[in-house]
């Protein structure tokens, strides 16, 4: 393999992101890094981290944003579209097939019970994700206050997100600026 591989063609982008979509069970990001950096060498590790920093700064799933940005980098808007369709085609089909199967058999008690177990573990996945993200807040007392306030506003008071999000981000950013957490 040469040291600096040529930029991927549209087809290679499509197929590369298709494999990312197929592999990624319960978190696509590690797979995206593995395939983009180690396997295909479309970016080096530092470039990938930089790109991820940008993607985390914007709304939208990180992997989705990485897909759009990489597609754009190599082939403009068409590249973004091809990479996106590549990423989503297989999972989109798979999830709808799962939905059909569930609809067909959800009346069976065993399927319902299996599903109760699956749903409990799926919630645990979100809980683990939340705890992992919250862990660095231990050193940030104001950060803990902001996280708790956001939690209460959304989970307890059930306030709508469109006003809560900008208010909390503004308050949080001011606290970081003022107290330098």
């Amino acid at each position, binding site marked *: 393999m040469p040291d600096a591989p040529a930029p991927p063609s549209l087809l290679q982008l499509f197929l590369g992101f298709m494999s990312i*979509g197929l592999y990624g*069970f*319960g*978190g*696509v990001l590690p797979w995206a890094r593995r395939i983009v950096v180690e396997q295909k060498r479309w970016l080096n590790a530092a470039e990938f981290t930089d790109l991820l920093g940008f993607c*985390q*700064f*914007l*709304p*939208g*799933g990180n992997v989705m*944003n990485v897909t*759009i940005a990489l597609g*754009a980098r190599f082939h403009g808007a068409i590249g*973004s579209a091809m990479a996106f369709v590549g*990423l989503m085609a297989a999972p*989109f089909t*798979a*999830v*709808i097939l*799962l939905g059909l199967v*569930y609809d067909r058999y959800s009346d069976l008690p065993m*399927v319902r*019970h*299996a*599903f109760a*177990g*699956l*749903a*409990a*573990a*799926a*919630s*645990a*996945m*979100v*809980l*683990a*994700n*939340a*705890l992992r993200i*919250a862990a*660095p*807040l231990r050193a940030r007392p104001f950060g803990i206050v*902001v996280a*708790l306030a*956001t*939690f209460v506003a*959304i*989970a307890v008071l*059930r306030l709508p*997100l*469109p006003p809560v*999000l900008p208010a*909390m*981000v503004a308050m*949080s*950013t001011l*606290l970081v600026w003022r107290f330098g*957490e």
Partner: protein
Amino acid sequence: MNSASLLASLAAVFMQLSLLAFGGTNSILPEMQRQVVQVHPWLTAHEFAALFALAQAAPGPNMLVVTLIGWRVAGLPGALVTTLGVAGPSSLLTFLGYRVWYRFRDAEWRRLVQHGLMPVTAGLIMASAALLIRTTSAEWGTAAITVVAALLFLFTRMHPLLVLAAAAALGASGVLS
């Protein structure tokens, strides 16, 4: 409601969610639930949690719950509308922003905002977890699965799919009910 206006409402809901999704799909689950269960009563809270679980069992990005909601509410056109709706606005921002990123990448305000976003995202994902757990772990058996699975996700390198499969098998065996 006719199907064109149903698809239009779905598109409006999910395009707005797209712009709120700092930290990814897990951050917007409570607002998504509020919209599709309370504001537009398209699903029950239990159906919402079931579709979320189903989406976790499929490969790919975890935004697939959005695809399933669209499919459940309005069939295949619904699935396409919600998937493209939740991807569209944020992707457009990414596409346009990528060219100017280097100009503000090292700016002080960028660092402050990114630092400020983090606790908000943590609170939002915690809220998502709480709302899901309230629906999915109401009995001791399912609550135990949630606790054990969370510990496995956090402290072992066990493949997530294996944990999900084990939880489903345990459920199917009937020991939980």
